[in-house]
Each structure stands twice: as C-alpha cells, then as structure tokens.
C-alpha cells in the first residue's frame, strides 16, 4: 500500500517560532510537493522538488523554505511562524512521468497563536 506520511496531524506553535513539517514517502517518487489548503482557495502550491537537493518555488513561497536531503523525505520550514500561516498543510508525491497521479498525506493542521 503506497504511503505518504506527515509527521503530525495537529500542531500548535507560537508566533515567531521556527516550525518544521516533515513528509516521508515510500514509493521512490522523484517529485514531492507542499501545498496549503484554505477554505475557498483550494490547494495552493508552496514549493516542490523533482530531485534530491532540487527545489522550485510554487505560487506562495513567501515565508517558507524547504529541504530535501534524501529522496524519500521533504521538509517544509516556517522560518518565523505568523498567524496568517495557520492552515492545513498537505504533502504529496508523484513519479517523474506526468501521467501518474499524485499521492497525498493526511495533512497537518497548523495553528499559530
């Protein structure tokens, strides 16, 4: 059974904290993605990576960074959390062939207080 695992389902952090969201996939996929999901806005792409140590900005990268040191792991970093980063964060992975589906994790609901 294919799996994308996000390290936490729920997180509460304080304003100004550095926050790490971890995602691991067991499908040997080349592509990995981080999205945030907000009501009425759908999923917006923050960053994606198509190879180890490679990354590209998505539509809303401001305030975020990412790290991909190993193929199976893709981390999202909030350098200094702010209340407007309170959201649901979804990680996904897919193989390099574009005609394959993306597999999603269960999501991390982050609240910044």
């Amino acid at each position: 059974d294919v799996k994308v695992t996000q390290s936490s389902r729920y997180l509460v952090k304080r304003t100004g904290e550095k926050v790490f969201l971890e995602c691991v996939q067991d499908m040997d996929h080349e592509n990995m993605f981080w999205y945030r999901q907000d009501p009425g806005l759908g999923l917006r792409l923050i960053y994606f990576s198509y190879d180890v140590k490679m990354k590209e900005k998505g539509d809303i990268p401001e305030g975020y960074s990412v790290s991909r040191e190993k193929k199976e792991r893709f981390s999202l970093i909030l350098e200094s959390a702010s209340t407007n980063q309170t959201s649901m964060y979804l990680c996904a992975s897919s193989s390099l062939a574009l005609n394959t589906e993306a597999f999603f994790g269960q999501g991390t609901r982050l609240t910044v207080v």
Partner: protein
Amino acid sequence: AQSVTQLDSQVPVFEEAPVELRCNYSSSVSVYLFWYVQYPNQGLQLLLKYLSGSTLVKGINGFEAEFNKSQTSFHLRKPSVHISDTAEYFCAVIQAAGNKLTFGGGTRVLVKP
C-alpha cells in the same frame, strides 16, 4: 502559467439525484487534467484523469468527466449520488511539459437524504 476555476463552491444535492461539478482551466500549452476527492478529515485521492484519447473518462465510484478542448472545460458528473459522496472535489491541471500541479478552489458537495 496555468490556472483552474471551479465555478461552484458548494453544491447541495439530494440522494439518488445527478450532480455535475464544473471545472474550467486556462493554459497556453497542452495539459493533463485530474479530479481528486477529499472526504472529511482525509487526504486527497484520485477520482479520474484525462491524459489523451477519448474525451469521456470514467473514474472510481461511478464518476465520469468530459474533456472539452474548445471550451477548456473538464466537468465531473455522476448520474446518481449517494450519501457517501459527501466530500470536497478538486479539479487539477498539469502542463504536458511541466511538473507543477495546479488545483482549483474546490467544490463542496453535500448529499441530502
């Protein structure tokens, strides 16, 4: 650049009635199209995808979608819905030569008994 518009944010429908969820996209190049479903408190899973060939695509759980290139649309339909179809549905597009998966704002379907 590509974008996806889902014209209805919410669709209430009675059980056993038909439902259509509308999706329009814009892109200057060829695209692949997807519909995903998100059940409450779960991640996204693929319903169906259009890559090429027949414009009518059948997916899981009795859903189907029709690709219309001239109208740049990819509407999702089901002839008879069940209570279990209550969920949020997302249309997504990826350019044939790219690797950035872009989502629409989502349509929340509420099936009433």
